[in-house]
């Protein structure tokens, strides 16, 4: 009996990887998905934090895609290993802090390790030539195959006809004529294929799955590294940069202020690790202070916090401050006028 070949697919939860899997399944290949969690993925938890997003479905798109395709999905925590990818990208960054080429290389390399361990035959991705400015170009796609160690075990079903033949094609596991030649940034060929397969509900495609491609997020991460004088980071840093209003009035401290109830609830989980403040005389948000503020700095922080409370137009509001040892003190401050909170303070 001829053994059924097995492929593992890099699944982001977007349309392209969904199509790539379906194309290969249609050729009688057993496909399972793998999804890497770097900490910077937009998926899931960010919706859970913000209450205003609660109307949106909280589904994990990679799992949803797997379910639609009837395949297993393995989610892998790569938070620690990913630090080196982000901090030392051999091929540099894209427009923001996105190390897309090194990231793809890293993920394909992890998939190589996975297929070796699990007895699978090859790897597929939903890449489309020319779609992403860094990692999906004619000249960079072979670099990913080579430097990841995947070589000809890496098949991109949506643009395979534009690339050299891979082992799965050569061995006759998949028919090259049934693969595609998609290129460029137009989504029309993918949408037509989605229609052919009867996919009518899929996540917004490609590019939006990683916070590192976001200019505002990258600016916050750059600010954090500069202020600390050290580019290392922990998962909590990554999370906190996604939440709240970030204001740095002085180099030695930054304020993180919840923008709504969901964010305040999330930030309250960090109260023991940061000096924190809340307004006692009016309704208002929670504030965490990151850094080493002195007493005048804390007064400034309280004035800024008061600005974002319902007491913003009052002559004074009461603020409760809890330090890192849990000692509680109270301050009465005048809310800072809106135009005194300088634009350049907003990170």
């Amino acid at each position, binding site marked *: 009996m001829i053994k059924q070949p097995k492929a593992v697919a890099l699944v982001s939860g977007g349309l392209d990887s969904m199509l790539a899997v379906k194309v290969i399944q249609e050729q009688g290949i057993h496909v399972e998905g793998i999804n890497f969690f770097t900490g910077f993925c937009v998926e*899931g938890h960010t919706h859970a934090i913000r209450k205003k997003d609660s109307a949106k479905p909280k589904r*994990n798109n990679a799992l949803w895609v*797997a*379910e639609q395709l009837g395949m297993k999905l*393995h*989610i892998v*925590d790569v938070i620690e290993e990913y630090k080196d990818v982000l901090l030392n990208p051999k091929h540099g960054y894209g427009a923001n802090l996105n190390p897309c080429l090194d990231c793809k290389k890293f993920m394909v390399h992890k998939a190589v390790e996975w297929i070796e361990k699990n007895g699978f035959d090859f790897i597929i991705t939903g890449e489309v030539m020319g779609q992403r400015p860094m990692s999906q170009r004619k000249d960079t796609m072979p670099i990913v195959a080579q430097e990841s160690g995947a070589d000809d075990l890496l098949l991109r079903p949506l643009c395979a006809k534009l690339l050299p033949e891979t082992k799965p094609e050569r061995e006759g596991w998949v028919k090259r004529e049934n693969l595609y030649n998609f290129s460029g940034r137009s989504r029309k060929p993918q949408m037509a294929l989605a229609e052919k397969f009867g996919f009518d509900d899929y996540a917004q495609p490609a590019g939006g799955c990683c916070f590192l491609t976001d200019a505002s997020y990258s600016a916050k991460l750059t600010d954090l590294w500069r202020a600390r004088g050290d580019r290392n980071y922990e998962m909590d840093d990554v999370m906190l940069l996604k939440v709240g209003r970030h204001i740095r009035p002085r180099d030695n401290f930054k304020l993180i202020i919840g923008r709504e109830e969901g964010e305040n609830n999330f930030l309250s989980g960090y109260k023991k690790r940061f000096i924190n403040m809340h307004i006692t005389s009016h309704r208002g948000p929670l504030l965490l202070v990151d850094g080493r503020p002195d007493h005048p700095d804390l007064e400034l922080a309280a004035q800024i916090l008061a600005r974002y409370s319902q007491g913003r137009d009052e002559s004074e509001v009461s603020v409760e401050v809890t330090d890192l040892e849990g000692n509680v003190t109270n301050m009465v401050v005048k809310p800072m006028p809106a135009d005194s909170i300088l634009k350049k303070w907003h990170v």
Partner: protein
Amino acid sequence: MARMTTHNLDARNLLCPMPVIKAQDAVAKLSSGDVLEVTCTDPGAAHDIPAWCRVHGHSVKEIKQGSNELVVIIEVGETDG
């Protein structure tokens, strides 16, 4: 006959997809018929853990919804090992 055992997993204060990943890693060490009770604080786990179970052939026996946390009770299906 192997006896079914019940295991507990504390996935509190973790945001999705981490509770799913922890549940996945715990299930990998269990046998068919075993039960895993996963305690979570992220409400997203109530959607994601059952979705993960469906694609892997495990069943969710019950989701106990508390005020601040929830417990997802998984019965392990056929395992690959």
